[in-house]
């Protein structure tokens, strides 16, 4: 069953086509990865789906309903949560309070939201820092916090924009485990990721963006073997190293 249907999605910024006629589906309960070189339009596509930007053309359907034109807060209450690539902690609040803001979506009572948030922080490995001001967190911890905030809204579709970047392998593994546990609870995950090790390990489907276009999509193994993808993304990256 499809939870997210993206059709002919296009976003033009004065003269530049950041996302160009992109179509893909996200299956309910799956983990789908959006990959591609820098500037391929991944983050713009995320902004479009999450309502932070309005598409120039195309349609986005979530659980069968058209969502183009809805505000980010409407989409959040419909069940779409997203993280920001450049993390955006609420700097005047504690780590716990950051997560509580998200939790208040589905747990309108403070005590309830606090319990949800504390539990999430514990699972993601920030439990010991719950009462610290968010401004004191290191970048890897801020990435974890960003994920915890999004999870706290109890989404049905979770969109993660490079949450593993900059994490130590042990931290990335912990986040992967948390994501798996949420996926097992029925949360669908769409993620932008550069860490191919992570993508290959957890994604059932990969969509490759290149110059704003969907270059290829399919199972990770097929994508890794696709000559166009190797040419435009994987291969080039391998050569650089």
């Amino acid at each position, binding site marked *: 069953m499809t939870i997210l249907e993206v059709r002919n999605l296009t976003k033009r910024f004065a003269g530049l086509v950041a996302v160009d006629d992109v179509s893909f589906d996200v299956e309910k309960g799956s983990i789908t990865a959006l990959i591609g070189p820098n500037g391929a339009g991944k983050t713009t596509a995320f902004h479009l789906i999450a309502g932070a930007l309005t598409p120039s053309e195309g349609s986005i359907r979530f659980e069968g309903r058209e969502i183009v034109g809805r505000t980010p807060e409407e989409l959040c209450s419909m069940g779409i949560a997203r993280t920001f690539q450049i993390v955006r902690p609420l700097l005047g609040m*504690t780590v*716990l309070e950051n997560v509580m*803001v998200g939790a208040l979506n589905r747990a309108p009572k403070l005590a309830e939201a606090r319990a949800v948030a504390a539990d999430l922080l514990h699972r993601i490995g920030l439990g010991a820092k719950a009462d610290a001001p968010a401004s004191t967190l290191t970048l890897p911890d801020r990435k974890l916090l960003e994920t915890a905030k999004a999870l706290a809204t109890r989404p049905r579709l979770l969109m993660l924009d490079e949450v593993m970047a900059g994490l130590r392998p042990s931290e990335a593994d912990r986040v992967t485990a948390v994501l798996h546990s949420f996926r097992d609870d029925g949360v669908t995950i769409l993620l932008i990721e550069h860490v191919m090790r992570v993508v290959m390990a957890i994604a059932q489907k990969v969509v490759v963006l290149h110059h704003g276009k969907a270059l290829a999509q399919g199972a990770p193994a097929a994508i890794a073997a696709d000559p166009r993808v190797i040419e435009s993304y994987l291969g080039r990256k391998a050569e650089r190293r």
Partner: protein
Amino acid sequence: MSSVLPRDARRPASGGGPAVSRGFRATSMRQWGAAVAFVLVMLLVPLVASTFHLSVLTLIFLFAFVGVAWNLMMGFAGQLSLGHALYFGAGAYLVAILAERYGITPWLGLPLSFALGAALGCIVGALGFRFAVRGVYFALLTIAFAEFARIVFEHWGFVGRTGGFFLKALGPDNVPLLSLRGDSLFFYYALLMSLVGAWALAALLVRSPIGYRWRALRDDEDAARALGVRAFRMKLLVAAVSGGLTAIAGGWFGLIGGSLFPDSVFGMRISIEMILAPVIGGMGTLFGPILGAFLVIPLNEVSRDLAQSLGINGLNLLLYGVLLMAVIIVAPGGCWPWLARRLRLSDAGNR
């Protein structure tokens, strides 16, 4: 106060993870303790204070009151208003006009002024927030509204134009508890009680889910919206509460002084004076505006006396400027967070 305290004492017990919020609980209790102690001391002050001191303290309470109101909007929800004189003046004129022209008691006038201030806050807010006028541009919009109101009142015959609007002198048959006008002792207690009420309302809102959403908006509006915070609704709410409370303060200002001039209640100057106490005391803190008023108002009194005896006009403004700079350099977050750390009353979440 007493109805507020048990509620807060109860709250931490029902929530919180195992290791979480223990510090919060203790600090919260100490903060409430400090608030109660402050009110008790203030209740007893008239036993020893002169009439002059009482009137200065009344002014402190008034500016602490508007400081609390303005701080809700800027300190907690991050919406910079430099035109709060709009609400102050509207409330002042409404209460005075109702009392003087229509014989309507301020007991009704003050709640009505809250409604008027809230409505005006919604209008200004809706215009600004709907069209995504943010930051400095929103501040300019608020100034424009306040100035517009000042100019209208300066040309409106019904309210006496620039000549001012006056309340009748109090007769011998005046009953303060009916007219809400009286001697300095009456106004002292009236404003103290109003301040306690405004502060308790602010404290309840800030510590409710609404307060969390306001602070999230303040810190990062886009991130907050992505977390499901209904930005427009929340900003409208804070504009309404802040505008309404400020209008009540304006109402008291008219009742205390007995005379209103467009420039003295709608002018830029009052808009600026309103924000000094929370800025110096500490924006985004519950106690900051009150501490700030205790610093700013006496300084204003002293410097005005000094300016008069030395014959230097504007000395008080100079001192204001110096104080503001000193605070920005020494305690950028305001005096309260600085003081609270030393009194062990602060915690990160609940500044």
